[in-house]
C-alpha cells in the first residue's frame, strides 16, 4: 500500500538543500582551478558556468513542475518507458552516490592537515561513515531539518571568514580582468570539471513529492542556483584578490589559506582556519548526507523495499572501500574532473532529454483528445 506522503518542505528548505548539496569540500580548492583556467579573471569563469547552471536548473524545474507527484524513479519510467527509465534512474543514483567517497576523502585530508595530523583513515573516514549511515537511516523530515541547521552554521562561519579576509584585499590582483591568455584547450579537463561543484539542483528530482508548494519549485531552484553562483563568485573573487592568481596556483586549499590569513587580535582562538574546518565538516557532511540519503531512498524504491534504512547501512562498507581507492590528492583530483563531465551530462543533457520527451508526450496526448 502506498502511504500518503506528507508535504512539508518549504521553499527556504529547498533552496538550502540545493545549496548544501553543492557546497562541500570542493569550494576549498575551487579558486585554484579557477586560476588555472582564466588566471586573474578566474572568478568570471566561475560566474559564467554559474549562469549556465541557473539555466539548466530552470529547465529541470520546469520539467519537474509538470509531475509534482513523482520522483525521478517514477518520472523517467513514465516518460521513457520502463527499461530506459530504470537506466536513467540508475545513472542519476550513480551520480549522486559518486560524490560520497570523494567528499569523505577530502574530509580525511582536511582533518589530516589541520586537526589530527596522524589520524588513520579507518578512524576519520570510518567514524564519518558511521555517522552518515546513522543519519541517512532516519526519515526524510529529520534529514531536511538537520540540513537546514548545519548549512546555516557552515554558511555563517564561511561568510564571516571570507568577509574578514577582505582586510588583505588588493584590487590590483584582479587585473587584467579577463586574464592573461584566452581559454586554453590544454586545460579542458579543469575547465569543465568546475561543473562538478555546481551540481546541486538535481536534488529537486527527488524532492518534489515532499514539497509544500510544488508549483514554486522553479522559484526555489532559481534562488538556489543564483545564490550558489554568487557565493562561489564572491569566494573566488576574494581569494584571487587577496593572494593574486600566481600564488593561488601554488595553494592546494586556497580556502584554508584565506582563513589563516585573517588575524584578529580580539578573538580568543589563535587560528581561524581550524574554526573554518570544524564548521566545514558540517558542510561536507550535509553534501554527503543528501547524496547518500537519496541514493539509499531511490535504491530501495527501485527494489521495492519498504524502508531505506537497511540500504543506508549496507552502502557504508562499499563507500568505505571506494574511498580507500583515492590514495592521494592527484588521484581524487582527476576523479573529480571526470565527475565534472558526468555532472554536465546529468545536469544539462538529462533534463533536456526528459523535457523533450515530456513535451512530445503531452503533444501526443493532446493530439489524441
Amino acid at each position, binding site marked *: 500500500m502506498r502511504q500518503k506522503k506528507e508535504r*512539508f518542505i*518549504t521553499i*527556504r*528548505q529547498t533552496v538550502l538543500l540545493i545549496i548544501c548539496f553543492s557546497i562541500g569540500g570542493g569550494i576549498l580548492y575551487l579558486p585554484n582551478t579557477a586560476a588555472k583556467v582564466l588566471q586573474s579573471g578566474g572568478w568570471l569563469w566561475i560566474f559564467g558556468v554559474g549562469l549556465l547552471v541557473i539555466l539548466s536548473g530552470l529547465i529541470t524545474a520546469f520539467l519537474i513542475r509538470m509531475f509534482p507527484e513523482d520522483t525521478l524513479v517514477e518520472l523517467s519510467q513514465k516518460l521513457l518507458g520502463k527499461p530506459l527509465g530504470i537506466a536513467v534512474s540508475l545513472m542519476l543514483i550513480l551520480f549522486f552516490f559518486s560524490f560520497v567517497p570523494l567528499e569523505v576523502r577530502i574530509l580525511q585530508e582536511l*582533518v589530516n592537515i589541520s*586537526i*589530527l595530523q596522524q*589520524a588513520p583513515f579507518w*578512524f*576519520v573516514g570510518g*567514524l*564519518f561513515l558511521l*555517522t552518515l549511515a*546513522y*543519519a541517512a537511516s*532516519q*526519515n526524510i*523530515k*529529520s534529514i531536511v*531539518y*538537520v540540513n*537546514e*541547521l*548545519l548549512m546555516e552554521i557552515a554558511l555563517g562561519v564561511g561568510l564571516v571568514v571570507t568577509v574578514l579576509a577582505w582586510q588583505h584585499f588588493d584590487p590590483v590582483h584582479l587585473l587584467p580582468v579577463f586574464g592573461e591568455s584566452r581559454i586554453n584547450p590544454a586545460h579542458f579537463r579543469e575547465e569543465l570539471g568546475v561543473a562538478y561543484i555546481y551540481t546541486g539542483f538535481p536534488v529537486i528530482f527527488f524532492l518534489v513529492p515532499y514539497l509544500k508548494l510544488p508549483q514554486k519549485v522553479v522559484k526555489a531552484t532559481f534562488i538556489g542556483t543564483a545564490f550558489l553562483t554568487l557565493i562561489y563568485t564572491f569566494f573566488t573573487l576574494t581569494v584571487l584578490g587577496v593572494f593574486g592568481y600566481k600564488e593561488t596556483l601554488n595553494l592546494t586549499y586556497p580556502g584554508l589559506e584565506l582563513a589563516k590569513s585573517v588575524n584578529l587580535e580580539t578573538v*580568543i*582562538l*589563535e*587560528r581561524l582556519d*581550524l574554526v573554518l574546518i*570544524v564548521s566545514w*565538516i*558540517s558542510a561536507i*557532511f550535509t553534501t554527503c548526507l543528501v547524496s547518500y540519503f537519496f541514493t539509499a531512498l531511490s535504491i530501495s524504491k527501485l527494489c521495492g523495499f519498504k524502508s531505506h534504512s537497511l540500504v543506508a547501512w549496507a552502502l557504508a562498507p562499499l563507500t568505505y572501500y571506494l574511498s580507500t581507492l583515492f590514495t592521494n590528492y592527484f588521484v581524487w583530483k582527476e576523479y573529480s574532473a571526470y565527475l565534472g563531465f558526468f555532472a554536465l551530462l546529468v545536469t544539462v543533457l538529462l533534463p533536456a532529454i526528459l523535457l523533450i520527451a515530456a513535451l512530445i508526450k503531452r503533444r501526443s496526448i493532446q493530439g489524441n483528445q
Partner: protein
Amino acid sequence: MKFRQYFRRPKKLKELCEEKETPRQQQGEEGPFLTACLADNVNYLKKRLGESEDVIFREYTLDLSEPIPVMVVFVDGLVSKEVINEFILQSLTFKGELKTEWAKDRSQLLKHIKDRVLNINEVSMVSSFPKLFTMVLSGETALLIEGHDEALICNTRGWEHRGIAEPQVEAVIKGPRVGFNEILRSNTAQIRRWIRDPHLTIKTMQIGKRSKTDVALVYLETVANPKIVQAVEKRLKQIDIDGVIESSFLQDMIEDKPFSLFPTVQSTERADRVVASILEGRVAVLCDNTPFVLMAPVTFWQLYHAAEDYYHRWPLAFLLRTVRYLSFLFSLYLPSVYIALSLYNPELIPFNLAVKIAATREGVPFPVFLEALLMEIAIEIIREASARLPGPLGQTIGIVGGFILGDAAVRAGLISPITTIVVALTALSSFTAPSFEVAVTMRLLRFPLMFFALIGGLYGIAIATILLLIHMSGILSFGVPYLAPVVPFSLDDLKDTFFTVPRWAMINRPSTFKAIDQKRKGTKANRWWQEIYKPPQLEGDEEEE
C-alpha cells in the same frame, strides 16, 4: 493467555439465558450492584472495607411513621466532619409535617431526601459498588437507605493539605509568587482565576487501576489545535498502570521519544507559566497529589525560557536569555573543548595563555582527560550530597566540598587550577537552565562529549555535535518539531526565541503550535499603542481651547 478463549467449552442454552444482561449492565456499568436490602449492602461494604478502621459506618434511623434504618459511610480524615454533622446528620431529622406525606410513598423517599432534605451542594446517586468505593475512598460520603438499591453520594471532601506557597525550584525576582499545591481542584481554580474565559476546558479523567488518580486536561477550546488536544487525550487514556504517584509517571507514558535524553514534555510548578502556555495554544495536564503540571507540546528553546523573561522589560530579558544560551553552550562544550585543545590542538590557544596552562599543569600526575573527568565526578557528588542533605546543611556541604576540596586538590598538585576553573564554570553554567529536566540532559551529554574529545579532538566534537543535531531534528513533540522555530524556520516566531520583543509587538501566538486562533490581540493591535504613546499636552492646551 489469549488462546484460551478459542478453546473454551461452548456455552449451553440454559447458561446463555441466565446471562441475560440486567438493564443496569446495559448502561455500561460494572457490577456488583446494590440491592434493596440495607443489611446485604452493609455486609458487602464491611466485608470489603471493614478491616480498615478509618472507614466509619454510622447507623442512623429515620423517624418516619415507621423507623427506617439508614447507613452513613465515609472515610475518616478525608472528609470534613462538620459538613457531615451539620448538613447530613442534622438535616436527616425531618420536620413533623413532611413525615406523613412521605411515609405513604416509600419508593420516592430517596429522591425526596436528595431534593429537599440534604443541604449539600453536590449530591449524586450511584447504583454499583465499584463506583461507590471509588467515591467513598476519594472523600465523599455515601448514604444508604433501607429499601433502595441506590446510594446517595454527598460531596464532603476536606482533608489536611499544604497551602499555596511560593515554588521552591523556579523562584523569580519579579512576578507572581504563586505555585501549585497538591490539590487538583485548587490548581484548576488557580488557572480559572487567571483565564476567565468560558472556552477554558477542563477535562477530568481517572488514571491508575488502583490509585484512580484524578487527572485534568486543561486547554483553551478556541485556541489550542484540536489535533494536539486529541493526541494528548488519546495517549493519556491508553495509560494502564497501577498507580500515578507523580505527574512524571504520566510524562514517561505520553512522551514521544521515550529513549531520548531530551524531554518532550515540560513540567512546572508555577501557575503563571501554565497559564501562559495555555494562552499559547498548548495543553496542560494536571495531576492530583502533585504540584507539578505537565505542558505539551514543547520545543527545545522553550526549556531555556524562564517565566521571568516576560515580566522584565525586553532589553533585560534579551540579556538574560543571551546569558542563558551562552551558559547552555558552556555547560555542554567547555570541558570537551578544553580536553580537545590541550590534547590535540594547543596551537589554537593564544601563545601566552598556552604557556600559562602548560605551567599550571606542571607536575600534575593525571592526563588531562582523567583530570577533567575526576573533577566532573567530584562536582556531581557534591551536587548530589547537597541536594540530599536538609536545607542549611546542604549549603554547608556545597561550600566545604567546593572550596576546601578544590583548593586542597590544587595545592596538593593533584589537579591543575585551570581544570578547576573549567569544571566550576561548567557546573555554574548548568545551574542557569530554568528547567530542571534540560539541565539534567546537558549534565548527561557532557560525558560522551568528553569521550569524543578524547578520541577525536575537535573532529570528534564536530561529529558528536552532528549526531546530536540529527537526533534533535528527528524529535517531534506531539507533532511539533523540537527545534522549531529555528528549524523549520519561522521569522515571526523568532520574536520569542533568542530574545523577546516588547509585549505590544507580540501580535501572533507562536505559529509552531498551530493554534486555531493565531492572533493574540484584536485586529487593531498593530496600531493601538501609537494612540497610547501620544504624550499628554500638559501645558497651554486648555487655555488654547
